[in-house]
């Protein structure tokens, strides 16, 4: 291997590389050498970072003096997730979402916006859907958390998961764990007779609501789907909610329809 620091001839640049260096005004001898050296150092450090294990970082933290350690605002919390309890020691700033993903490796719940605007992080806490990105892990002591990973039972997917597959209720899949958790919680809300903004009469209180499509859309509006799989998500929900074996409403276009569409 050539020594790139001392051998000018090893910098055999392609035409493109020369052009780029020309454009940024670095293609004269001295500055070019300096730039390329820095580039090599930078590339090396990127490579090296892959070898820093979490153990190494943990050791570094352990070595910090006490007063700095106190700034970490440690909180201890026993997270009860999917019927398992995990004792965790966390920075007080840790959200439930980050605790699930980074500490418990439950990466099903997704970080979409991290600001409570998309619903990708929706989990079920004590039976109610909530946003894990705006929930502090510290405030979850004693609460029962269910994530997408906890919905299947005995190797069988939850009916809502099955319906999402059947009705193709997703494209990229990033919002799907949130959509499904939200849908599962909504089933209970409908059973309990909870109202929504589009409910006709707020004084008409009854259980076991049969939700219209308009109701489903309003009640699921907290879960944004960038791919726009909403029609299929509504179909999937309807099937589980109504208990009817609804056929998907979409079908492949016929050759005739395709020909017409091209006009």
């Amino acid at each position, binding site marked *: 291997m050539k020594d790139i620091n001392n051998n000018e001839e090893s910098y055999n640049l392609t035409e493109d590389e020369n052009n780029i260096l020309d454009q940024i005004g670095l293609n004269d001898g001295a500055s070019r050498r300096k730039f390329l050296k820095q580039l090599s150092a930078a590339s090396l450090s990127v490579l090296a970072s892959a070898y820093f294990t979490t153990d190494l970082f943990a050791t570094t933290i352990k070595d910090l003096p006490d007063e700095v350690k106190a700034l970490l605002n440690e909180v201890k919390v026993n997270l009860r997730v999917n019927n398992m309890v995990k004792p965790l020691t966390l920075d007080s700033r840790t959200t439930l979402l980050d605790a699930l993903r980074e500490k418990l490796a439950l990466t099903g719940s997704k970080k979409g916006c991290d600001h*409570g605007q998309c619903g990708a992080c929706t989990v079920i806490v004590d039976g109610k859907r909530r*946003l894990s990105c705006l929930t502090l892990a*510290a405030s979850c002591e004693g609460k029962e958390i269910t994530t997408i990973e906890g919905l299947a039972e005995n190797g069988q997917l939850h009916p809502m998961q099955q319906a999402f597959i059947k009705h193709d209720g997703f494209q990229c899949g990033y919002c799907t764990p949130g959509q499904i958790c939200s849908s599962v919680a909504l089933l209970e809300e409908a059973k309990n007779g909870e109202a929504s903004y589009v409910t006709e009469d707020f*004084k008409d209180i009854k259980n076991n609501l049969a939700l219209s499509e308009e109701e489903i859309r309003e009640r699921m509006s907290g879960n944004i789907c960038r791919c726009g799989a909403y029609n299929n998500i509504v179909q999937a929900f309807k099937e589980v909610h109504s208990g009817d074996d609804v056929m998907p409403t979409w079908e492949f276009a016929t050759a005739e329809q395709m020909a017409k569409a091209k006009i």
Partner: protein
Amino acid sequence: MRPFTYTGAKTTAEALKAANANSNSHYLGGGTNLLDLMKEDVERPNELIEVANLEHKQVIRNEKGGLTLGGMLNNSETANHRDVRTWYPLLSMAMLSAATAQIRNMATNGGNLLQRTRCPYFFEVSMPCNKREPGSGCGALTGMNALHAIFGWNDKCIAVHPSDMAVALAAIGATIEARQTDGSSRMIEIAEFHRLPGDTPEKDTNLEAGELITAIHLPRPDFSTHYYYLKIRERASYAFAIISVAAGLQVTDGKIIKAGLAMGGVAHKPWKLTSAENYLSGKTPNQANFEAAARLAMKEAKPLEDNKYKVKMGEKAIIRALTQAYQRKA
């Protein structure tokens, strides 16, 4: 997010004591607004005192023939409570128009009243904002102000209050109960609870340091038959109001006995439409009277460069909300 210590208060007394001991602490309810603002570096408390798990989670019938809503009860449970739906459907409707099921399951009633504005200049720390950083100026005044105030603003702040619940409470005439750090309680009328910007736009409400909202008292229900919460927004759901109108009517023998009207998305606080309410009292509930009341309500409107549309929209919104409210069958 900046570091903070987390204090899980077990009792109200503990929470008040912790708040009294640290002027840079902040109560944490559902966290739906506060944690977001902390992530944006807009709010910078060095201690969070969790109050969402405290008592004050009941809905009880009070001695004035109304209801008392617990300050720590969440928005979903409040809006869906049998007594609230039966006697204050206007409040249920307004609360259910807000945010999403997930957020309403988290947000507390007290926290809902203490939401900060959604003005983009307040959220963006590189922008001037007198509410976030007193004295830095108002970026929205000569900037993008299509979603801003048309009532009660001044050149210090043109932001609007985002709560839907508070608009319904203003129409209904609620009273807020706050616990002071010495343990005593005081009552604040909803009209006096939120403030206009004045010289201190950084202060949204008249709560004093360390005070904790423990209850919202509702008067005898007057609008349980004729009610409507109209919310106009940029999409059909999950958006803050451009303009909203809470309308309640009490109608006997073809005459309006009492009208409750308040508007959201137009001022630094829920905007009570007193002149329109007074005008409607004793009148027949018909289109002509609704139109006259709406014109009266919008007379004092002072729009900005980009929100002139709100004056006409506001007028139409009032007429529509009153019409919808009246058309509801008993």
